């Protein structure tokens, strides 16, 4: 059995009367791609926010590589080796794509020599190499606000990968990406993440993407995990189909 990288136990968090996490227990195994699916408001993003320090659970614990990280500040969690991307790509629009990547490298390398340039040779080279792996070399010098959605998503995730995480949490990596680009974006992602041996947890609404790329899928429903297992089995479950996928297909239509 492969070892547990991240372990969540009994996570609870309510916003007013809404239970965004109502006893979440989940182990993320080292090296796997775990998809999180479920209707809007089921608490998928809340789980990512709790794991990355943006929200503190009201009860329960999260441990990473065996050590507790519950309630730690986001940047301390980043330093442990957990990175995230947001549903809306959070690129620095004042910077070029290359500078964005170099900023992530700089953040990882800190502390800084403050007056040295951002694009010093070693970082420039590493940033170029990173963008190459993501197939973004052609737009390295474009400003981040000039990109199409697929490129923005990839650049955003490239920045997270630049932090050299062992665990990457992605909130809807394909949302907003044109259908024609979607599979290509995910293929690139999967290739880079597997090569870098990054464990990935991603929220996804497209069941084709889930079926093709996830090792396991967790179904979120009203703050709970309703089902967990290999995609073929989980997605075939009639209840999951009715409760979750039906809603997804309906929402997508």
């Amino acid at each position, binding site marked *: 059995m492969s070892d547990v990288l991240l372990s969540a136990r009994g996570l609870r968090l309510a916003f007013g009367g809404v239970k965004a996490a109502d006893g979440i227990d989940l182990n993320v195994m080292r090296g796997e791609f775990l998809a999180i699916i479920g209707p809007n408001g089921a608490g998928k993003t809340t789980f990512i926010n709790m794991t990355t320090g943006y929200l503190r659970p009201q009860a329960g614990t999260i441990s990473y590589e065996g050590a507790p990280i519950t309630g730690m500040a986001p*940047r301390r969690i*980043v330093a442990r080796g957990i990175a995230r991307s947001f549903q809306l790509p*959070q690129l*620095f629009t004042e910077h070029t794509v290359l500078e964005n990547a170099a900023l992530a490298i700089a953040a990882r390398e800190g502390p*800084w020599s403050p007056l040295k*340039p*951002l694009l010093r040779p070693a970082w420039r080279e590493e940033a170029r190499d990173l963008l190459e792996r993501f197939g973004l070399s052609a737009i390295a010098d474009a400003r981040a606000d000039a990109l199409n959605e697929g490129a923005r998503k990839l650049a955003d995730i490239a920045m*997270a990968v630049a932090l050299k995480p062992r665990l990457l949490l992605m909130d809807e990596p394909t949302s907003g990406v044109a259908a024609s680009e979607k599979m290509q974006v995910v293929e690139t992602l999967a290739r880079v993440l597997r090569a870098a041996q990054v464990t990935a947890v991603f929220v996804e609404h497209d069941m084709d993407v889930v079926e093709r790329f996830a090792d396991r899928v967790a179904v979120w429903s009203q703050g709970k995990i309703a089902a967990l297992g290999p995609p073929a089995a989980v997605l075939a479950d009639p209840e999951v189909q009715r409760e979750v996928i039906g809603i997804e297909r309906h929402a997508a239509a």
Partner: protein
Amino acid sequence: MYGWFEENGLLLGLALLDGLAYAALVFMVAVGLNLVFGVLRVLNVAHGSLYAIGAYTAASLGLFLSARGLPEWASLAVLVVAAALVGGILGPLIERLLLRRIYAQEPVLQLLVTFALFMILEDAQKLIWGTQPVQNDAAMRLLGNFDVPFAGDFIPFTAYQLFVLPGVAVATLVGLAWFLRRTLTGRVIVAVTTDREAATAMGIDASRIYLLTFTFGAVLAALGGALSSPTASLVPGVGAQTIVLSFAVVATAGLGQIEGAALTALMIGLSRSIAVYFMPEAEVLTPYLIMVAVLLIRPQGLFGAAETRRV
């Protein structure tokens, strides 16, 4: 027209030189205010107090040290040291103890808090320096006068106001633009300004960037004050006058503009100075008339885009 120039040419020349020196000081204060607002999103009314305290500290420190045998040539360095002390001590104190508690609050509350701080610091100045004018023009006397050729004649003008003030302002402008656009720390400041959450997600310590930026802005305000101190006798209220004029520059230029703030400071400094010489009754009004006229036509300021970069 020719006749008018014959009669008033030298006066106009003097007004332009005065305006240039004045614009340099206004720019130093306005650009710091603008930087702090762009990054922290707090309009710091107490920025003017840092200017005033910088001025008083520079004058007093100079008087104190020269009474103890400080050579005259060091009086210029004293101005810079005073500014670094004031900005470097008060800046972090204000940011850590006060501003950091109100970042998430409504802008109205932020304004009230920094206005309260301004009132407290105004009274603190009166407690420390009294209400009698404080003057120390050693730095200006040190450099003497320079005859500026103008329209076939010469205008004697202090070399300090002619070279030091504009020189420091230009150095600040170029240095700041280079710092923000070329250095790592500058790029990180811009990144935190664009998206604090994303910067935090990369492991950047945004609160340290806030502290650094505010301290930097505080040093710029104190430097503006310190550099102004040799040119005028200091009286209570100097901070209020400066902050209001800086607001006018920032609003006219557009928030977040560095070069724009420089051009606007020049425009407002020169027109105010021309008013002083030719229409003294309009002196106070001129900068605000310019501001109102610009904002009526371009609400986002002369150089600001509707919603654009903030530093």
